[in-house]
């Protein structure tokens, strides 16, 4: 599964970094940083959850 982020709309809720910490982190302003664009298995599930929870819809996942 492929993960795509849009940093221009990120509002720094931290939902991604707290739910999929091996896939996402935050920069020194608290905005989303993608650690891994291609994820499988448990990481894919966590990234899917992060995309669902992201309040600004800044995360997209593609199978």
């Amino acid at each position, binding site marked *: 599964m492929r993960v795509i982020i849009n940093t221009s*709309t990120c509002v*720094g*809720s931290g939902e991604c970094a707290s739910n999929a910490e091996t896939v996402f982190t*935050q920069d020194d*302003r608290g905005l989303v940083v993608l650690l891994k664009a291609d994820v499988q298995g448990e990481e894919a599930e966590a990234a899917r959850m992060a995309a669902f929870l992201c*309040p600004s819809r800044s995360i997209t996942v593609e199978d």
Partner: protein
Amino acid sequence: MTLTHEPSPSASAGDLPAFPMARECPFSPPLAYKQMREERPVAPVRLWNGNKAWLVTRFDDVRKILADKRVSNNITHPGFPVLYAARAAVMQQHGKPPYFHFMDPPEHTEHRRMFTQDFSVIRVKELEEEIQSIVDEVIDEMLADADRSADYVKAIALPIPTRVIARVFGIPYADVVKLQTMMNATSGFNQDPEVAKSSYKRLEAYVGELIAQKEANPSTDTISRLVTEQLRPGHIDRPGLIRVLLFLLIVGHETTTSMIALGTLMLLEHPEQREKLISDPSLTQNAVEELLRYLSIVHLTTCRVAIEDIEIGGETIKAGEGIVALISSANRDAAQFPNPDVLDIDREARTHVAFGFGVHQCLGQTLARLELRIALNAILKRIPTLKLAQPIDDLKFKAYINGVQSMNVTW
């Protein structure tokens, strides 16, 4: 109320049911929400000022509307549903959004980002040990009482988040306590608008002083940074900085106070859930999510105004009409949470919208979650005999942000 009633276009808002609605049980949203979710999931109501607004009650619709670019959070928009007179007086007095929460993108994004670094997952994690010591200290102080009795709100629920937010912003604890006392006169459904406005002015003056002190003695704290990086270069003006700091200081402790008090009360009232949590503390994180879902304390704060016509739930919300996205209803939607009225710390509750949704979702949620996890863990472990020392029916609750005013306990 009659949910099947369809107002004709000429019908005045006077024919509609009044909102906010009274709760039958202080821990659950009004039963009418359930009926609305089933029968008319987007339903019109009448506000205190006679304006009409639309309630959105289903989980999917609440998320949809709060993430929709066709809604505005500008509280000074004439159609914005402000839920009581004193709130309108305070929040609309400048003729423009008082701080980022009531702005729309791109202005909102720019202003919110002045603070995102202070609440990031990494930054909050760095506070873990300090929060643990604050929690331990506060519990020690309560346990020192010779009579083994206390007002739990005053002794535990309020001081924990207050000390934490004072630490986050680098201001003396005594100053936040002072602000708390002063802010009691700024809100509430029955508060006189003029009294609210003058109280708010005093609060602003007080925060203005705090900023001036930081300017005179800059340090590495958040307010000093905001002065250097935002105020001096003109990204935010002084009244704007005062208002946003006041907002963050207030929401930074009021909500967490409510959650600690009501969360503890829920565990006392559900002894089987409490036992389960005591025997397996690894459930704490999930228990926090479930308590957030179940209680949904900021049940009236997610208001918006449509800036274009929006079709949702079989209705058309016209541009200029107010919307209340009921997160407390969304969090009790059986389509998302089976047996939604049952408190179950084992359930998958993480998708709740207790912190709102969309770009205005709570900035301090990571901090709130950590405080709640540490606090509940420590309370259960260190005060195993904690119990309510007054009949539950005698407790007095707060209306706008759900909470308990005081709560006598013993141990």
